[in-house]
């Protein structure tokens, strides 16, 4: 993602080249239409394949896949509730950590950073998105988990006395919902901050100047003039980050502890839907087991769909409120 200067419209008004022949246009139109149609076709094809493969499990087990929490392959029990819980909780933790950080980065880069600093920091943040997730996982095992176990978890639980709440109680093994949340936060951060930075930079200069002219301080200008203008774009960025967190597999599997249990404590190990599928798919022996894993995939698909729909709705309703 390249950054656009604020006033790109003024400076870089490209001249459209007028072509005498419309033949090229036709081909171009057909090609782009084919590209655009290919995506919905692909999504539908994936959905059909997943639901078809998941059907035997749904037919046999019904909603117990979603509502029960006993995953015992040998006994033929496939209750994925802990994995669904884990996916939602780890993603929520990730967003709670990543959102303020990412928006802070974006505000600093768009409003405060000197030009010479803007490029390198922006580049490094974007680079976070290019690191393979297995590398995040390894870093999680060898750096993050020991750090959490030796320092962060005892600090949260004992020094801050958060251990008295159910959310930070119990022994600190290391691999945990918290570790997964932190890894996901780092992975989601570049998505949120890149999009936020772009939309903040696209806020018209007049908006800022008007606020300053009314006597606003810099902070008031950002809070009252810039952020409201960019809000729908920032929410879009957050939802992109959430999508990343919901579907992330490898890094989470390596740090979450893979324990199919619902625990209120973030220090306890957990499980996610994507991890469950990744762990068991290659060695799934019975047809029902395979189908149950596909059913988990279908549930994940639906949850992602709902999240995206909610994001659309949020962006839309925020946009509408502003125009009113």
């Amino acid at each position: 993602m390249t950054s656009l200067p604020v006033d790109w419209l003024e400076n870089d008004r490209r001249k459209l080249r007028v072509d005498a022949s419309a033949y090229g246009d036709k081909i171009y139109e057909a090609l782009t239409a084919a590209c655009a149609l290919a995506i919905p076709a692909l999504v539908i094809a994936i959905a059909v394949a997943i639901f078809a493969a998941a059907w035997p499990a749904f037919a046999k087990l019904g909603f117990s896949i979603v509502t029960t929490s006993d995953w015992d392959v040998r006994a033929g029990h496939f209750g994925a509730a802990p994995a669904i819980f884990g996916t939602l909780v780890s993603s929520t933790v990730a967003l709670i950590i990543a959102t303020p950080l990412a928006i802070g980065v974006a505000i600093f880069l768009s409003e405060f950073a000197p030009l010479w600093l803007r490029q390198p920091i922006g580049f490094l943040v974007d680079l976070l998105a290019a690191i393979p997730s297995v590398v995040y996982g390894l870093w999680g095992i060898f750096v993050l988990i020991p750090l959490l176990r030796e320092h962060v978890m005892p600090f949260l639980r004992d020094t801050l006395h958060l251990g008295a709440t159910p959310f930070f109680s119990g022994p600190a093994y290391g691999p945990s919902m918290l570790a997964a949340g932190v890894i996901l936060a780092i992975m989601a951060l570049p998505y949120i901050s890149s999009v936020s930075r772009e939309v903040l930079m696209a806020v018209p200069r007049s908006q800022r100047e008007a606020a300053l002219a009314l006597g606003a301080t810099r902070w008031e200008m950002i809070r009252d003039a810039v952020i409201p203008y960019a809000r729908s774009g920032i929410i879009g960025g957050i939802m992109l980050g959430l999508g990343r967190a919901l579907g992330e597999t490898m890094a989470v599997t390596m740090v979450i502890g893979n324990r199919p249990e619902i625990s209120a404590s973030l220090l306890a190990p957990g499980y996610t839907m994507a991890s469950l599928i990744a762990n068991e798919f290659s060695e799934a022996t019975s047809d029902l087991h395979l189908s149950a894993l596909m059913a988990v995939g279908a549930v994940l698909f639906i949850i992602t769909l709902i999240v995206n729909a909610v994001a659309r709705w949020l962006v839309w309703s925020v946009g509408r409120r502003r125009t009113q």
Partner: protein
Amino acid sequence: MKVLKLVVPVLLAVACAKEGANSSATASSTAASSGGSVDLTGAGSSFAYPIYSKWAALYAAKTGVKVNYQSIGSSGGIRQLSDEIVDFGASDGPMTDQQLAQAKGGPILHIPTVLGGVSVTYNLPTVQQPLKITGDVLAQLYMGKITKWNDSRIASLNPGVTLPSLDVIVVHRSDGSGTTYIFSDYLATVSRAWASAVGRGQSLNWPVGLGGKGSEGVAGQVKQTPGAVGYVELSYAKQNNLPSALIRNAAGAWVAPTLESVTAAAAGVVPTLPANTDYRISIVNGPGKGTYPISSFTWILVYQHQKDPVKGKKLVDFLNWALTDGEAEAAPLDYAPLPASMATTVKAKLATIDLTGAK
């Protein structure tokens, strides 16, 4: 959409052709015969992948017959053989009767190729000498019945060793795995409580513990957590210098996991086999003084009736070579070779494969 219909297959074809060219480039430089095609395909066990790919490379160099082995996991190997997608499958656990009945190409033979052991590794910084452990205590650790390392049930097995009062942190594989099968097969054999509560399988409903993905996930977790106990393949423990517990075998001896003690586990069982054995046998907790109890064969699976006589002959020749010259390659890769006597009887089994093409 029309454009897409055309473009996609073309792209796929190009990608496939490229892939094929890459993978066969090394093989065809040594092999003089047939240009670029793969003669035999196999799929399955990822545990056995290093040795099978080594065999494939050596065999191609020697005879020009190319063997393409894909490590997709034992279950995938069984499925692909059942659907007659590959010429041979490979699995770390024997096929069940139900799986055998579902195979589309008729009866399947289990050909033991090499052996693997499972090491029990642990992290007890203050303990210098190898920890001694019995199968029953191991089962209790993995069921959460023993929660401290200085529990009398462990201490009584390790006289003279000061065990720390650390919490036991159980680590197991989170991904389905033949290693888990062998480990749980052993625990189910020696502990009735384990057999009824947990049982044996590639993925289990673990009573306690943390799941690590792959051997590296388990080993990483154990290495970093004082008080942790986990299990990994013998080869992995050896290559990464992980401490391995001594396990008490059926004869009452304390045995470390080594290639010799794993081969001994097979040698101890061979005399007890009936002449018409199908080799679907478990050798955990086997007899013999030098036997390491958490050991298992890994198998190549082939159809008894080969539909294509030419291909069938190539397959039998390859397996014969593997059981003769190939066994020597096992030890350098940290697999335990079959006992010599057994290689002979397995080759006799290979001779029963029907190459007439009749079903």
